[in-house]
């Protein structure tokens, strides 16, 4: 048999041994590599077996998708009763917003989508105009939703459902970042009065639960206003939520400020830049970049905290669900409601988290070891 000969170093790579490639090798390596590993796999598989089939059955296979009331649902199937959700879907989306004006909510959802695309996707067409539009969006949406100036005015106590969540969430997100940056700069400031004020504000807000601040907003804020004036509950909630998350934002930004090497500050000073210019051009771009995970986590926290408004009587999806459960037609369907709302929050928050990971990777400029 003819043996081929090679010069040293010229032999082509041999294929890997057959027991280290392919799905079987993967299974052996990742699931069955040691006795402990086998036990873990068995336990996990048993757990999945216990959880997944009953869940699937309850959610899809044995669920009723149509029906007039709870008893009709239960007669059809033993699982979930989704007819309830589909009957109340409009309530979950718009709250008690007047029927004839709901196109305004739809339009503001659509515009939000456009603004989000412009902000989040850096190769979007017309991005520059899109960014200007995104800055103007909170005001446009405010006009669309509240009315006035040619549109039928709508009281804020008609707001509810996912729309309310988005109103509180988007406003909080839009305003808490700039306020948080100012507070963080204040906390690092050389001016004693400013520093003390920032520290006091941040530590006070971070020391108490959001729900107590919402209670303050709903019960005692009126005492602090001039006699006879009162202002909208939703506006008070918006202010409290924004202030609350800006305190957390300030701590995130402070972490970033402290992580920037001192040389950067000194170099900016040496260039003769004034305080605000050096912050704007040198420090903050670096700080914001390294703080992205923290910033997005704060956003997610704020977004989830919007559910707390139900405790002071605003009707977000959870509140709508809870009040719908009081309807004798649909009583006892709490699991369906909570699962439905949970899916909504999961999609939004998980989306934000994944986007922040993507952004982190994209902005990564340091050399990986």
């Amino acid at each position, binding site marked *: 048999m003819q043996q081929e000969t090679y010069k040293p170093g010229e032999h082509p790579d041999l294929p890997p041994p057959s027991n280290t490639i392919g799905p079987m090798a993967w299974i052996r390596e990742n*699931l069955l590599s040691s006795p402990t590993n086998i036990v873990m796999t068995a336990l996990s598989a048993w757990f*999945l077996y216990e959880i997944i089939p009953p869940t699937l059955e309850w959610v899809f296979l044995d669920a009723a998708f149509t029906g007039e009331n709870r008893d009709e649902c239960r007669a059809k199937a033993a699982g979930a009763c989704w007819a309830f959700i589909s009957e109340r879907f409009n309530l979950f989306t718009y709250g008690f917003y007047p029927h004839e004006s709901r196109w305004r909510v739809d339009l503001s959802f659509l515009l939000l989508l456009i603004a989000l695309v412009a902000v989040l996707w850096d190769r979007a067409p017309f991005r520059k105009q899109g960014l200007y539009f995104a800055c103007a969006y909170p005001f446009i949406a405010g006009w669309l939703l509240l009315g006035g100036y040619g549109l039928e005015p709508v009281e804020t106590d008609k707001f509810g459902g996912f729309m309310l969540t988005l109103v509180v969430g988007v406003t909080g997100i839009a305003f808490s970042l700039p306020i948080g940056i100012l507070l963080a700069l204040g906390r690092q400031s050389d001016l004693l009065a400013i520093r003390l004020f920032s520290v006091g504000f941040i530590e006070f807000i971070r020391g108490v639960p959001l729900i*107590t601040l919402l*209670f303050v907003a709903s*019960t005692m804020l009126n005492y602090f206003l*001039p006699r006879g004036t009162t202002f909208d509950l939703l506006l008070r909630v918006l202010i409290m939520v924004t202030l609350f998350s800006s305190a957390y934002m300030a701590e995130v930004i402070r972490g970033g400020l402290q992580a920037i090497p001192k040389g950067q500050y000194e170099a900016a000073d040496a260039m003769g830049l004034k305080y605000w210019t050096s912050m704007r051009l040198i420090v903050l771009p670096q700080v914001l970049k390294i703080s992205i995970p923290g910033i997005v986590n704060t956003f997610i926290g704020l977004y989830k905290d919007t559910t707390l408004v139900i405790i002071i009587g605003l009707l977000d999806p959870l509140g709508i669900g809870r009040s719908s459960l009081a309807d004798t037609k649909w009583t006892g369907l709490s699991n369906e409601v909570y699962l439905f*709302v949970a899916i909504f929050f*999961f999609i939004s928050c998980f989306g934000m*988290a994944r986007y922040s990971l993507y952004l982190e990777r994209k902005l990564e400029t340091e050399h990986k070891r």
Partner: protein
Amino acid sequence: MTGMVTSRKGISLSRTWNDKETRSVIIQIVAICLILGFFAYIIRNAYINLEAIGKGFSYNFLWQPSSYDINQHFIEYTSRSSHFRAMMVGILNTLLVAVCGIALATLLGFILGVLRLSRNWLTNKLAYVYIEYVRNVPVLLHILLVYGVIVHSLPVPKQAISLNEGAFLTNRGFFMPAPVFETLFWIVPMLILAGIGFMMWFRKHARRVQDETGHHYPVFWIGLGVMAGIPIVAYFILGAPITWDIPELKGFNFKGGMVIRPEFIALWLALSCYTAAFIGEIVRAGIVAVDYGQTEAASALGLKRNRVLNLVVIPQALRIIVPPLTSQYLNLTKNSSLAIAIGYMDILATIGGISLNQTGREMECMIIVLLLYLALSLMISAVMNWYNNRIKLVER
């Protein structure tokens, strides 16, 4: 030269502004005036408003009877007790759920963190799915969901699930036998305390001996023997001086024994599972952040695998884990105020909820609530900072 100097003497607005010292003084004075002015304004408004409705500002209401019931109380409390006593009950309830929650969340969180690092693909992904689901859904929803499951899915007391002798699971709570201590029982807790004291001394001693001679005591096993073994032996020598008060079904509910209310169970489980997801990620990140070279170096020194973990990896990981862990503990404590959504009577639900509505003393009640939560947060921060200082790297 002299001309320049004289020209500097003139007072000009732009020059004053361009001088760094003067400018900082001016900015601070303006800021202080604005802040003080703002507070003066709102306090004046509050004064005028309170005057106008004839309320005044007073804490006398605290000593009036509260006239509402609280179903879970650790100190004696009836509806004839004062609002102040109701507040104390609320504080104890908040502390209870916070302490139990922190303990369970830490345990679950460490387990999750380790599972996330598991080389087993399936386990790893299961932990990942759990963490992502729990973290991305509001905690209030978790609380309501768990509470809903307990109240709607567990049976009424008449068809209670009997877990063991005298322990019953119902939608009114978890009923179990209550221990009744006989006279000689006090010896057992005293022995446990003495054991803990001995162990604190022995740990230091063992460490010193190891530093000096290299001899290693099995501290864990000796500790277990002294702190648990001796009291257990003593308990049986004394003739098991505990009898059990077993709950019995009377009418529509159980009487006697001990009960853990569904509100507490729901709040406790939901808060712990929610916070555990965050702690799991913190633990994972902390352990990953310890350079792998440390593990290799320790193995090269001949340490066994559990020694590598205990003596090298975990002490270094803890330094990274503890600061964010503190803020999770704070979050859990603050989130416990969501108790009000399911009717667990904590600080906010007693003094900031029913007492506030009954007396109409919004300002006084909310000030108490805010101060109590601030105090609680400061306490947790202080304890965790003390711990963090103990374990942190001693640098030159």
